[in-house]
């Protein structure tokens, strides 16, 4: 016998995962425009490795392969890993991140729906601590050199070496967050650092464009009710509040609010990473708390930690607190005392 309800909303896990991935396309195109085709190549590598690992683990665990390989979650994790990595990351770093994400963070914890940690962030964090040198260098944006061709990108990604006509100094440099952090530790004044047009020109800076596109994609998802607003608002709110507090303490040592929001991966975290339903808190109030925690942690790691961008660690740390948050945020049921 088939039980009620007899009608359903036509929205599957797969549809959600694909639509979320789709919302990143405009940002990805901008990324390719500014930094060359590295992102696409990395996505491809991460996706192949992730799917292969997923298939392998599903077979090991005696699970049906087809529905899970098609559910889009591995693809989405691959896209997020690619967004986190620099465009010219060597293939084996990307592959390690994807493999760790799927094998350890996802399947060893029980597969789709059971993973405690956000797989993409777990994978990224592992390569971040294991291969710091490979991850330190970002490609310079278009305009300061000729955009990298596919050929160049393939060459660098797979051999780890540059073609003879290029040198690392030419094509790479630190990210804005990185240069500010380094500058500050070397005793420079924030106001001087921000005079560098490449850091302060919010309007034209590639990071700002990409982040705005990410945010637009994210707002679209909220609008489509694919993600609830609690998480983006929580993360952004957490960053904004702590950044404002920092400015009040010492505006010469702590970067402005918009710098924090638009020059790192806060937008990606707010709309696409922290919103991973499986590893986030469940209730609406819980989600808000969870996201606020992430926002505050991102800021703290940036301001006082040794990594320029704290997103991965902030998310992973809050993942650990989810059971606790869930326990204390059970909503009041209908007809029960407050």
């Amino acid at each position: 016998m088939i039980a009620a309800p007899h009608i359903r909303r036509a929205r599957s896990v797969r549809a959600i995962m694909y639509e979320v991935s789709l919302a990143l396309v405009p940002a990805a195109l901008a990324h390719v425009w500014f930094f060359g085709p590295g992102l696409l190549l990395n996505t491809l590598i991460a996706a192949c490795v992730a799917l292969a690992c997923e298939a392998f683990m599903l077979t090991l665990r005696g699970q049906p392969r087809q529905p899970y390989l098609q559910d889009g979650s591995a693809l989405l994790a691959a896209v997020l890993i690619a967004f986190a990595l620099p465009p010219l990351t060597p293939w084996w770093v990307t592959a390690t991140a994807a493999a760790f994400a799927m094998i350890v963070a996802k399947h060893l914890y029980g597969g789709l729906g059971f993973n405690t940690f956000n797989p993409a962030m777990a994978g990224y964090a592992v390569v971040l601590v294991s291969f710091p040198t490979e991850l330190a260098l970002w490609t310079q944006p278009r305009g300061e050199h000729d955009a990298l061709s596919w050929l160049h990108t393939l060459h660098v990604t797979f051999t780890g070496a540059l073609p003879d006509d290029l040198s690392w100094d030419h094509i790479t440099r630190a990210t804005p967050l990185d240069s500010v952090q380094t500058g500050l530790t070397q005793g420079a004044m924030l106001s001087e650092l921000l005079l560098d047009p490449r850091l302060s020109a919010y309007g034209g800076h590639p990071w700002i464009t990409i982040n705005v596109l990410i945010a637009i994609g994210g707002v679209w998802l909220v609008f489509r009710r694919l993600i609830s607003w609690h998480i983006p608002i929580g993360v952004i709110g957490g960053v904004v509040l702590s950044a404002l507090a920092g400015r009040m303490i010492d505006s010469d040592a702590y970067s402005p609010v918009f710098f924090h929001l638009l020059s790192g991966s806060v937008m990606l975290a707010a709309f696409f990473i922290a919103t991973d339903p499986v590893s986030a808190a469940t209730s609406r109030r819980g989600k808000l708390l969870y996201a606020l925690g992430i926002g505050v942690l991102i800021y703290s790691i940036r301001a006082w930690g040794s990594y320029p961008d704290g997103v991965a660690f902030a998310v992973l740390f809050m993942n650990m607190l989810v059971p606790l948050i869930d326990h204390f945020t059970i909503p009041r049921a209908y007809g029960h005392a407050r």
Partner: protein
Amino acid sequence: MTALTLHDFPGGLSLPPNKAQQTAQPISTLALPDRVWVPLLQHRGKLSRPCVKRGDKVGLGSVIGLADGAFSANVHATIAGTVGRIESRVIAHRSGLSAPCVEILADREQAQDFAAPLDTDFRLVDPNILRQRVADAGIVGLGGASFPTALKLTAEADQSLHTLVLNGAECAPYISCDEMLMRERAGDIMRGAQSMLHILQINRCMIALEEDKVLAIDAMQQALEDLSDSRFTLCLVHAKYPEGGERQLIQVLSGKEIPSDGLPVDIGYLCHNVGTAAAVFDLFATGRPLTSRIVTVCGDGVAQPQNVIAPFGTSIQSLLDHAGGLLPGSHRLIVGGPMMGFTVDSTDVPIDKGCNCILVMPEENARQLNDTMPCIRCGECETVCPASLLPQQLYYHARSSHLERLPDFHLFDCIECGCCDYVCPSNLPLTQYFRYAKDELWFRSQQQARSNQARERYEQREQRLLRQQQERDAARAERQQATRDAKQKQSDILAAVARAKARKKGDSS
């Protein structure tokens, strides 16, 4: 007209309505069937006791089953004719239950066997008498839950009652019997409600219907003007499922929640379906007991979807025939709406007082239970739950058989509306799990109660034996003591005698 601030309830869904086809034509009446099988269980509560036997002649409205206590309802002949077999048959029930049914073979002439209509104004009649007549007429709530109406009209005992709510908020897609009733018999509904107000001895009635039912609103407004009774207020509520749920509706109208373990009357409200009010009107105006109802026959598998008045006991098949039959293809037969209805396997099932809808859906859009995915904790189910529960947690514990944890997550506050199920992207049959878990926990608590009883009985017996033993021991000890005392007394006497003798001896020497 609606000078009322309405409130909201959490969660809920806007479902695609799907009512246009079956509301395009007026309510039709089923042709007199050759036979009916009238179930003796058409209400919440105890089975009615049959009071006719094979061969008896019955008129339309003759009592054929007597209520077994207050928590039960009379059953009447729904056509005139001769009683045939009385046997157990599958009835329209969620669990596929069978119950005794009375077969009536139709006569050509339809003799009526109604009680006398009220010959005076109902306002001059004692509420208790009216209430008894409602009970005699076998009227139950026509919203689908089939709770005996007379029981719900005993509220003077509760002085806090102040408002009667007439529920015309029909929020499930497809079902439209209440809407059509309001369009065609608005005045009768209100006159029925007036007598309910008199029985309850209160002066306020809120009529709730959804703001998108334009024609029904017009009809009700017109009736209200004609009646010019200031006790009535028309309340237009947003069309949101499950608005028609008693608890949600009262929350919308009053802004208050009914305590989890309480009833609407605890906060002063009482809720009756508009169809029930019309049935009460019919009873007092014509003496007619409850023998038929409006059923929505609809769904993509039905040729001519419509609302039809059908006597209880007619088969689903005859309703489908009346609605032009089934369209080709394989179908799923559902009794009730698409959100809370249940499937039946055969069309040879009699309809009863609770059947508001026969829905036929093509088999191909049946949910595929084999393509469920694990819960991805997306929280969609929580956003739509009108009871503010955490369905994913309930599901987790129900599935892992930590059933004893479920009451902590308020399983018993789940109204089984199916909203969570409807939105779950993993296609999990959540409501089914909750229903199962409730049954299972209920069963366990029954067992627990039984074993507690047995243990108590055993302990009582042990104690009784112990007490008897102690009493026996005490009696024996008493007896022994008595003997000892007697012996002592005797030896005291002997000693005294001896002493006396000795003294005598001494005196004489």
